[in-house]
């Protein structure tokens, strides 16, 4: 696929793939700018899920019959699509989870409980989603480890020199997001990983917000774990991926026991299954996995580089237009950003902003974005957040700007 320049990007064509976008909300055309919360689903993904239930429904990995083999082949086909998407070395490294949260918890409870000991340290950052804070706090409580936090500057960028100071012989794990959902900052994860690896410390990358926007090659990044959610990459909810390096996954105990994750069970002893099934106890989210595979194929057909370039253009347009409105203050002004615009208007509470925009058919998020420490750092209870996808348009950003003027009028 050739990379188009952003202005050649055929947004009308991709919009036609998303049936939900044609509706009106409160009498106005829907302007969906809450993509960091979840993305919409193209017709091909909806069709794939429908077709699975209409024609292929069966349990996987256990049937000799026709449908079961078909379902198994489809699900394993999806795993292979993900493997190629991430450039993982093997299907064994691609574990189906419920989502990013589930993947991070898996690593904390499996790798963490086995390898991290009392007094040892785990590093996260001040930009994390609660999903990359709480599992580590729980682990710290269980094993007596200590959580250390890389601070950020006023632009919402990680202070790398502080990170270097935090790394020490007691550091046993680093877990950071690639893209911040609250501010949009793109973190220098390659450098973070290099520095950790120099001390033999493994790194998990929370890819919830990078997977939809940036092309990621796990081997090039050299991350040890990478977690993301299906629903943020145009796939279904309740499905996600945990990538892990095979030699690490092999040393890790399963967290859940049950069917599918075993080879032999007797009451004396159970032999666990091979990777990746060791971590996939129970009947999986079959149509979720298949739908995710289809979603990734769809994104690849649009082209992740095209998506990134077009979204960057949207972000620049929005930053200039919205940021230029008197009274608007943008929170998160990192040099390297993905398509998130967090903002405040005068002293108007974001919840009120959200309600007024909703009346105009515009969906944004108002709140702390599951990143309360980020809000505390900027000394605000919450922000309004517009987050863009490749199916958004500049006209929608114009609508947002107009609605912001309405907010300012209402509040005088």
């Amino acid at each position, binding site marked *: 696929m050739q990379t188009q320049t952003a202005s050649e990007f055929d947004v009308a064509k991709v919009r036609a793939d998303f049936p939900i976008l044609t509706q009106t909300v*409160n009498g106005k055309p829907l302007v969906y700018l809450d993509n960091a919360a979840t993305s919409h689903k193209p017709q091909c993904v909806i069709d794939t899920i429908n077709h699975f239930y209409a024609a292929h429904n069966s349990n996987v990995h256990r049937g000799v019959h026709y449908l079961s083999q078909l379902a198994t082949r489809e699900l394993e086909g999806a795993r292979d699509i993900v493997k190629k998407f991430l450039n993982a070395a093997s299907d064994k490294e691609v574990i189906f989870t419920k989502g990013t949260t589930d993947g991070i918890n898996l690593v904390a409870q499996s790798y963490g409980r086995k390898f991290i000991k009392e007094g040892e340290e785990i590093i996260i950052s001040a930009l994390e989603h609660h999903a990359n804070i709480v599992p580590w706090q729980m682990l710290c409580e269980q094993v007596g480890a200590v959580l250390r936090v890389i601070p950020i500057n006023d632009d919402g960028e990680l202070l790398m020199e502080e990170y270097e100071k935090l790394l020490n012989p007691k550091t046993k794990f680093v877990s950071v997001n690639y893209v911040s959902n609250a501010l949009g900052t793109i973190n220098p994860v390659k450098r973070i990983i290099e520095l950790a690896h120099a001390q033999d410390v493994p790194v998990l990358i929370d890819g919830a917000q990078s997977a939809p926007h940036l092309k990621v090659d796990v081997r090039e990044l050299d991350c040890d774990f990478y977690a993301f959610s299906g629903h943020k990459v145009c796939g279904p909810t309740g499905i996600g991926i945990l990538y892990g390096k095979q030699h690490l996954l092999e040393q890790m105990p399963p967290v859940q026991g049950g069917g599918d994750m075993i080879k032999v069970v007797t009451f004396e002893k159970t032999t666990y299954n091979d990777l990746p099934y060791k971590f996939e106890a129970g009947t999986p989210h079959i149509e979720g996995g298949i739908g995710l595979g289809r979603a990734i194929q769809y994104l690849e057909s649009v082209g992740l580089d095209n998506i990134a370039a077009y979204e960057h253009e949207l972000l620049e347009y929005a930053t200039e237009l919205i940021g230029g409105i008197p009274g608007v203050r943008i929170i998160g002004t990192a040099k390297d950003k993905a398509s998130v615009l967090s903002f405040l208007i005068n002293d108007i509470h*974001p*919840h009120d902003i959200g309600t007024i925009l909703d*009346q105009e058919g515009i969906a944004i998020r108002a709140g702390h974005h599951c990143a309360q420490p980020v809000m505390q750092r900027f000394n605000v*209870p*919450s922000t309004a957040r517009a987050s863009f996808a490749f199916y958004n348009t500049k006209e929608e950003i114009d609508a947002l700007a107009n609605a912001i003027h309405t907010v300012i009028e*209402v509040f005088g």
Partner: protein
Amino acid sequence: MADLSELYQQVILDHNKKPRNFKALETPSITQEGHNPLCGDHITLQLELDGEVVKDVGFQGSGCAISKASSSMMTAAVKGKSKAEVEVMADEFVKMVRGELDPDTEENHLGRLKIFAGVKEFPARVKCAALSWRTVQAAISESHDAVSTE
């Protein structure tokens, strides 16, 4: 369709801008916390009781315009009222914002508080309007557990 001007009425905007009784009491009989975890609204409510009667009231905290105006107007409404009267108003107010009581056709003691009736068209904002009333309910009841609208 819900009408914005029903929600953000001038009186509500005015109370948001200049909340009444936005203060800490010197000798409170009761201090009660309330929050709405979804949007981070938080209120600290203080009552000074003279027997059964609310002699003085003050609130502090941060929140959206609806929750702040509701708190402000709640404090103005309960001052001088008995605990029993406050209980009735709180009950009626919460019913009204949920759309379970029509203040124009059903008997009630809400008076000026009727301007919050428009909130029922905005389901996401019912909790914001109800927070201060839930908090005062908890304050005058026996249990003083912090109120959460979740």
